[in-house]
């Protein structure tokens, strides 16, 4: 087992290297740099059109005119040698601080969503497997799929408008203005929950269909197996019969995919978060890409990629641990 893990870890090193180069290439793909994007914003906002010399001077000041490999080396060596992810131009703060600031609420939102998704899809998944092609199966699957089929940004906007129109609530964000910078308290928690339901529903409904389907398929695989038939023949009650073995076996694939959730927790819900103006990491990433805030964007992409690799690693290890056959193949 240890050797297996070690082998997998060693394999990730070249992958990570390739990823770092890829991340850097992605942020360098669009023409221009942060200052040319900023200049264009300023032209709109204040009718000031920056002259080329000033733009080049700004680029030179931040080393943006240097050859790509030099810029890449500066960036990656900072990360590897000093754990320094660079400085965001737009916010004028270290990238790590910016991400860290938003990670807490992002995780909170993602976990709430995850719990919502699991709470909805397990019962439906199990039910629709056991009562295949029943009205309940159709209804449950239908509801799950409707959530999947409505584009998130559309549902977010509609729910936000409904919340504005009929509840008169302060819209957008995860807190009312007076609670944004406040300490955690009962009132703040309540305010948070009152804002939380829209993103959780939007994000959650999109995820339930997939899970229902997986759960249903896994259950269908299990419940026709001989051991279930045997157990039933021995007179076990249907509920016990289900939860004693098939459900547990059907859950295995879930556990092995938990690792995949890792990057989702950080990046997930970008579009919904933009529409709802949530203080999570997704909009930060998108904005940094649009404004070509290269260190923020690059480090962000790099981090997401690393999390994906780690997630795969974790799920592979879990799988190997759960199922010895994989290890020895």
């Amino acid at each position, binding site marked *: 087992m240890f050797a297996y893990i070690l082998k997998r870890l060693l394999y990730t090193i070249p992958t990570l290297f390739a*990823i770092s180069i890829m991340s850097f290439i992605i942020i360098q793909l*669009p023409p221009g740099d942060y200052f040319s994007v900023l200049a264009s914003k300023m032209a709109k906002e204040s009718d000031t059109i920056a002259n080329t010399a000033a733009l080049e001077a700004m680029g030179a000041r931040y080393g943006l005119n240097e050859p790509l490999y030099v810029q890449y080396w500066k960036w990656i060596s900072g990360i590897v040698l000093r754990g320094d992810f660079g400085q965001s131009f737009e916010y004028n703060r270290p990238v790590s601080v910016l991400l860290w600031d938003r990670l807490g609420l992002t995780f909170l939102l993602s976990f709430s969503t995850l719990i919502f998704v699991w709470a909805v899809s397990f019962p439906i998944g199990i039910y629709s497997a056991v009562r295949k092609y029943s009205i309940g199966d*159709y209804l449950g699957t239908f509801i799950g*799929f*409707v959530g999947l089929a409505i584009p998130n940004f559309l549902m977010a906007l509609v729910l936000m408008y409904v919340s504005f129109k009929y509840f008169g609530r302060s819209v957008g964000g995860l807190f009312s203005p007076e609670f944004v910078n406040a300490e955690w308290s009962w009132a703040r928690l309540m305010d948070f929950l009152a804002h939380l339901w829209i993103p959780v529903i939007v994000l959650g409904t999109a995820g339930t269909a997939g899970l229902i389907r*997986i759960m249903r398929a*896994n259950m269908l695989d299990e419940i026709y197996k001989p051991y279930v038939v045997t157990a039933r023949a021995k007179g076990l009650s249907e509920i016990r019969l289900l939860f004693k073995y098939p459900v547990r076996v059907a859950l295995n694939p879930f556990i092995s995919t938990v690792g995949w959730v890792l990057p989702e927790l950080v*990046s997930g819900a970008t579009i919904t978060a933009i529409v709802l103006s949530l203080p999570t990491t997704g909009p930060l990433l998108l904005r940094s890409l649009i404004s070509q805030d290269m260190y923020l964007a690059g480090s962000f992409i790099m981090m997401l*990629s690393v999390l994906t690799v780690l997630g795969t690693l974790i799920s592979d290890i879990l799988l190997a641990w759960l199922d010895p056959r994989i290890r020895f*193949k």
Partner: protein
Amino acid sequence: MTPTKTTSDVTDSRDAGLAIPADDPPTSRRHDDRDIDRADDLPVANEDRTVLVAGQWKLIWWKFRKHKLAMLGGIITLFIYFVAVFVEILAPFPPDQYNSTYPYAPPQSLHLGQVEGEFGLYVNGYAVSFDPETLARTFVIDEEVRHPVSLFAKGAPYRLWGLIPMERHLIAPDDPSHPMYLLGADRLGRDMLSRLIHGTRISMSIGLIGVAISLFLGVLLGGISGYYGGATDNLIQRVIEFLNSIPKIPLWMGLAAAIPLSLPPLHVYFLITLILSLIGWTGLARVVRGRFFSLKTEDFVTAARLDGNSELRIIMRHMVPSFTSHIIASISLAIPSMILAETSLSFLGIGLRPPVVSWGVLLEEAQNVRSIAQAPWLFWPGAAVVVAVLAMNFLGDGLRDAADPYA
């Protein structure tokens, strides 16, 4: 990946049951015959006799028919593709025909009754007023005014599929200058119904090529990886890991900005879809690899090998067919996710852009408070997306269940 893996595990045992004896002559014709003959030996003796002698595809069809939602999904999907094929005839107007009198005109309903002395279809006219202070246009349906409408009326000339010159439209006002907004008008007074119909073609087709390429690469590379194993497998697995770890939105944004501007927007989108599909094959490849891993030690494969079949023949003739149905299901599930991806990317401003008309573009134009408050009919494309995605998902779901006809 998990669900597909598990369903195909079941398909496995069925294939094993159909395995042919080692002494079977290596001709495909005989092989197929044997398939059906040997069905008698299956451990499903309590089934109806017709089931036992039915071919695999027939069995799938029977199984599929049982899934009511999937049947419905299939019918709707066919209908949507029918619309996508005959867009020019079905749409009353060209998608970019604007009208400065009727921006944000609400939907009219189609009536049957006396119009201009004859009995027929008509729509009522509008009375329009404009408030210069609030800049709001108010439309009141004017019951007095009746504009006659006909089926297969003459309208704007067009070339069907860019080839056949025609000018009939399924439904159109007799006088083309009369307003007919069955689903309302957008901010430039363009007919939403026409735009919705025209959007169907692009939304329903743009993903097909991408899915096709992903499919090809996925089966090929997944097959190689699974069949040969060892170092080849390891290399391909690392490549998959690498490609999987690239976040899609940043990549898409980077590409969108780097592609030359002189290309028409549709080509740009097409190009990016292509590039993304070069990355998107990984999911299918993993599944196919898993299938190959388990299949290559199966008796029927060993049998074919002992018979002296070439590797390619073993793969194409014996192994691939055993999960064709699974692949079909994958496709039917990949297309709706492409449709959804298109809307999301349009929303982010990195997908298709006007003047191209797709559901994503239409939704992006509607995605604002003003539309939701004062022109909710602009959200019809959203309904179209939901229906299409639902239908294709049910279809795919049914296909996947059916792909395993003995379960």
